């Protein structure tokens, strides 16, 4: 029987182990000269791709690993020497350099792409895939998933506009399958899809529950640091039994922590929401700048969009797998995009649901998808509610635009403001 000591911290340790194992498999595939399916986190279609026995490579995750491991600048410089501008996405450039190095990354080696399949959740996905197309002459497929057209306008099943989108997504999936068969040499088996969808359902249920459990006080995980590990598993092992089991066990851990009041911090003083992408070049230190003040992130839009909308716990209907996959993709990717483009209402709900004390907006140079609307959204949120917020800019890859001293200065001032508010509120109720 597992004890509290066995369970607490298991999610992080097991996540790291699974991630290492997964990367080892990619290395083996590279050594065997096997081609991979290159995908992205927002709508990876891993559930479908696994039916064709193709290794699945997530270049965004590879790139962020170069930053976490403090070698991103070498990769960025190499891509810039090749011709890419300092002003484009750092993930793209790190991957370009990795490809120029034959797939070599600090964590190991990745196989080259046989095909790239990606949604339009981020336009840079398309430009990025075009680079592989030019480098390897491999097929690239944009799975076009139309998003919400306007804030608050979210037609659902039965609505003619939703049905137009659904038919389009389903049609594209049906076009993709023969291409995957040709590329992989593996015939499509709908029962295998049913199986991967089932595992994805289990993982999604767990992921949703884990996120809900962070409403506990104290919070049971840090959405910025621990959450990134969970997110990695949610993406890399989507549609696998290991992924399903991981989230089942993670729920067990978080429920235990919640029940026993075991917080992620010994002394949780401030509960925060994080909006944007983490500062990976100083990832650990970036987190410490908040935890040193007793601040922890109870939720983030990152866990929302970077899981491709899986946070809603969408359940595929296994009796009609392909149709349900199309619908799930449409809803999930639309939801992920809403978290970036139309985030005011959900963020305010999140603020109250998670009893947050403040919101940290972190736009970054590399990602305009996530960052473009943040300043305006911050204005809108502050106009509608009494929400303390912090706006800090840096990057997810490029240490040239990360100033730790400036970040610390702003973060310290933010916490001083939170402390002052709290003390004034205490005085007025006394």
């Amino acid at each position, binding site marked *: 029987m597992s004890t509290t000591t066995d369970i607490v911290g298991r999610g992080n340790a097991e996540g790291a182990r699974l991630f290492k194992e997964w990367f080892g498999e990619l290395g083996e595939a590279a050594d065997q000269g096997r081609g991979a399916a290159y995908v992205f986190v927002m709508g990876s279609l891993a559930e479908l791709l696994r039916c064709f026995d193709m290794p699945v490579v997530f270049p965004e995750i590879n790139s962020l690993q170069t930053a976490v491991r403090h070698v991103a600048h070498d990769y960025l410089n190499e891509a810039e020497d090749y011709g*890419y501008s300092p*002003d484009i996405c750092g993930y793209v450039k790190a991957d370009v350099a990795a490809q120029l190095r034959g797939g070599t990354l600090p964590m190991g080696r990745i196989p080259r792409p046989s095909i790239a399949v990606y949604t339009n959740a981020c336009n840079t996905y398309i430009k990025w895939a075009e680079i592989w197309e030019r480098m390897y002459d491999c097929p690239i497929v944009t799975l076009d998933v*139309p998003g919400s*057209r306007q*804030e608050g306008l979210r037609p659902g099943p039965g609505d003619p506009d939703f049905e137009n989108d659904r038919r389009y997504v389903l*049609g594209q999936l049906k076009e993709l399958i023969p291409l995957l068969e040709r590329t992989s040499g593996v015939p499509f088996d709908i029962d295998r899809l049913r199986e991967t969808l089932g595992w994805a359902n289990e993982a999604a249920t767990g992921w949703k529950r884990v996120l809900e459990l962070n409403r506990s006080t104290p919070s049971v995980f840090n959405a910025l640091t621990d959450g990134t590990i969970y997110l990695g598993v949610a993406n890399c092992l989507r549609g696998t039994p290991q992924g399903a089991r991981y989230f089942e066990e993670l729920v067990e851990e978080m429920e235990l922590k919640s029940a026993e009041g075991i917080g992620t911090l010994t002394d949780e003083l401030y509960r925060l929401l994080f909006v944007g992408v983490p500062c990976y070049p100083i990832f650990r230190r970036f987190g410490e700048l908040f935890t040193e003040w007793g601040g922890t992130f109870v939720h983030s839009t990152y866990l929302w969009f970077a899981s491709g909308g899986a946070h809603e716990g969408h359940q595929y209907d296994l009796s009609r797998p392909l149709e349900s996959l199309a619908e799930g993709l449409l809803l999930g990717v639309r939801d992920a995009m809403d978290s970036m*483009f139309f985030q005011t209402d959900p963020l305010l709900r999140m603020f109250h649901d998670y009893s947050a004390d403040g919101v940290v907006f972190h736009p970054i140079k590399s990602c*305009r998808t996530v960052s473009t*609307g943040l300043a305006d959204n911050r204005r809108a949120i502050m106009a509608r509610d009494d929400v303390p917020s912090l706006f800090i800019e840096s990057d997810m890859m490029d240490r040239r635009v990360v100033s730790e001293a400036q970040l610390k200065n702003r973060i310290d001032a933010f916490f001083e403001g939170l402390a002052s508010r709290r003390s004034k509120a205490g005085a007025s109720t006394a």
Partner: protein
Amino acid sequence: MNEIRWPPELRDESLDELLWSARELLEDDTYPTVRRWRGSGGPVVGHFQVYFPEEIAHAAGALPFRMRGAPVEPLQADSRFGSYLCSILKTSLEIALTGRVELDLFVTHPICDAARNLAGIFGRNFEYPCQILYLPQNANSVHAPVYLRGEYDRLRRTVEEATGRAVTDDALRASIRVYNRNRELLRELYALKRDEPWKVSADEAYVLMAMGGMVRREEHNLVLQRALPLLRDRDVPRPDRIRVVFEGGFCEQPPLDLIRAVARSCYVVDDDLLIGMRWILHDVPTDGDPLEALARAYLEDSSYSPVQHDDRKKKEEMLVARIRGARAEAAIVTAAKMCEPGLEEQVAYTRALDDEKVPFFVSEFEENMTSFDHLEIQLETFVENLMFD
């Protein structure tokens, strides 16, 4: 139907006066044509770059207003954006925030990561509907035309609601005819640029084309119909200049002075400036379903840009074809500062041009840059190297 003429005395003007008026209009940050149209009760549909099926707004009796940035300081808009973003986003919002233009509907497109955010940003700042038109990004799917026809139908309903006017199939067909004529006239303008570039400089052609985004196309057609014969009959010197293609103006526009600076040392025989106005290459059929005709034309009879992936239109091959088709000797490959698709495409373009042995000049611009001396010297050096090679 509103009867606003721009400028009212247009048809009697000389070519110089006409070009001067077009230039003034383009640089007038009070947007007099838009104000007059709205002042007379005409609805205005603002649409962001690159391509928008203006016929649908036009058929509702609206003025489709092309939001292509502006020659203004983004004093209010700056606080709505962070750093590292292109200028066109900010100045397009600025002209709306400051009331320089008043809209009834704003539409942006998923052309890039930044532009897609504009529906949310505009929507938080204005009461009128602010939407994304999801032009298909899987242009090679056989399902794309049917999907786009449905998306255009959704747009038609949105336009009807915003303007309070029905958009009938017959009205759409009439608008398509107006736009077909406009496309034909723009093709003639570009043919003149290509065949007799000394008769129309790059900046002259640009102002004549760009003003079409600020007036009803019937008006624009009148301007072009008057200007084209005057340009063809122009008795002007024929200086020896290098023929170039200018690439990189598909979204944010280079300042007019930059285009003028280029024109001082080169004949710009083709370009992608405001490519959305010339996106559809031939006449759109006016029989059958007009929305389907527009959808098919967008996908199957169209130009190229870095913001559309289409296996049938490999962009570097399209650029080389544009250069060969215009008998250009070199290319100017530019990108707006902070423009992710443009900057990424520069790498593919320059590598392809290297392979094809086409000389090229690479630069970046910003719509509000004011100093061109450095760029002009570099460009002159590039041109001299080619001419005396």
